[in-house]
């Protein structure tokens, strides 16, 4: 059994206490998506502004536990200024890290259902600080906390295409 320190790494608590890119963006030009974690009631709102295939601005709102909030904060710093294609690769890589043991609640495939790319390795993507969230997979119930903002980001990216 994993200890609490595996879950609550210092950098996570730091992002929780001092969230980056917190707030709202004006819609439009930004687009917005809302994600719910029906398990615990967490809500994450992701705003992004995309121009010329680049995520020029990101902001997050909502409320939730330290894992969902810090993950949102880390996500925002990780994708801000990135190309959309790079951000998508990062999402894949992150979600793959979150499903190493493949035991997401909701059964097989539940967290890896985003299409053909989902089997890509992430050898070529640098997760950086995000690695701190790796311990979450030892606490399967919390995986959805960590992935909530990422799934919501994907929805926001879809919005920009709509």
């Amino acid at each position, binding site marked *: 059994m994993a200890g609490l320190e595996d879950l609550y790494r210092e950098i996570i608590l730091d992002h929780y206490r001092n969230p980056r890119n917190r707030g709202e963006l004006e819609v439009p030009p930004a687009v917005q998506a809302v994600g*719910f974690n*029906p398990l615990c009631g967490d809500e994450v709102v992701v705003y992004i502004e995309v121009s010329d295939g680049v995520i020029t601005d990101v902001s997050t709102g909502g409320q939730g536990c330290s894992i969902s909030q810090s993950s949102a904060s880390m996500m925002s710093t990780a994708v801000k200024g990135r190309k959309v294609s790079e951000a998508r690769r990062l999402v894949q890589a992150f979600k793959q890290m979150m499903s190493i043991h493949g035991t997401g*609640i*909701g*059964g*097989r*495939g539940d967290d890896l259902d985003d299409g053909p790319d989902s089997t890509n390795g992430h050898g070529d993507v640098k997760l950086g600080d995000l690695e701190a969230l790796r311990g979450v997979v030892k606490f399967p*119930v919390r995986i959805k906390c960590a992935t909530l903002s990422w799934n919501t980001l994907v929805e926001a990216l879809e919005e920009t295409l709509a």
Partner: protein
Amino acid sequence: MSADRSERLSATKAQFPLLARRVRDRPIVYLDSAASSQKPQCVLDAMNTYYETINANVHRGAYEIAAQATDAMESARSAVARFVNAPSDNEIVFTKNVTEAINLVARSWGGANLGPGDAVVITEMEHHANIVPWHIMAAEKGFELRWIPVDSDGGLDLSGLDRLLDGAKLLGVTAMSNVLGTLNPVRHLADAAHDAGALVLVDAAQYVPHLPTDVQALGADFLGFTGHKMCGPTGIGVLWARAELLEAMPPFLGGGEMILDVRKDGFLANHIPHKFEAGTPPIAEIVGLGAAVEYLNGLGMERVREHEVSLTAYALRTLQERYGSELDVHGPAEPACRGGVLSMSFRDIHPHDLSQVLDDRGVCVRAGHHCAKPLMRHLGVPATTRASLYVYNDTSDVDALADALGAAGDFFG
């Protein structure tokens, strides 16, 4: 039957605690599995272990046993999905029985898609579970209910199929009749229905327990079955449906689990399959069904089917030899075309009286209309006496049935 086979089978029987029971000083002869099967010890153990070690409400608890309970439930969902070759776990919706599964389709899909001028086609050999929900919705929505007739051999008369399917939006059919044992040509019907633009609902309550099932090969859009007939507990049924259908359907029951958000002015439904699983699920029963599926996998569904075909052949032969034309077994004559469901009319002895004498000798069969009154009217009988076979039955059970029929014949002289 070879000595080898029957040895393996008596081992099977020994796994079912109830079958060790005696009735009036005779071993029980359980021949009513089409109504409900007995349960192997491993299924009871799985539920006891659940209750004794990880019982907790699912999907919303962060603590360890709640996570384990959720895992146990979701692994069972995976096992059930694999058992019928469903493309995704998300297509498995747990209900309380197959009756609820069919009502779910009638109310949710039917409520959204059926109206005046539409038609639903079912067969004359359906169980009430696949009739009454359509009566209810037809009265509410004003669509037409059409019937595929049964022919004199106990098969479906498909001569008018094209006409019946013309303008139909759904075809509902039992994969195997619970009265006649008839195995219906589901794939053929599905292809015809799809050509006519109709969806296909398969009532597989009598099929999944007895034959290897592949929802994709059958060409079904919806397929329902029920735990208690397949070595599983009571209180659990399954609706499989193609994900895109489930996604488009409105919710059925409302409450906890099936929502993403609830506000005073409305709600947002959860993703499938949870959208259709309102309230605390039958958790222990789902775990029990998972264990039943693993048990059947262990036996091998091909072998289960083989065993039942040969036992059905033995039964048909034995009854014919001993009672000739005095005893009429309804349904297809060829064991390979039917399941081990033997609906009998014996002389003019009323089924209720016949089964009473059989019970006196510990032989458990069912007498009645078997929830198939339209079929009974077609057969021209008020009721039949039905003996039904499962994997734990053997030739000794069939012999006991044959002997008891003789005793009944003597009694009513």
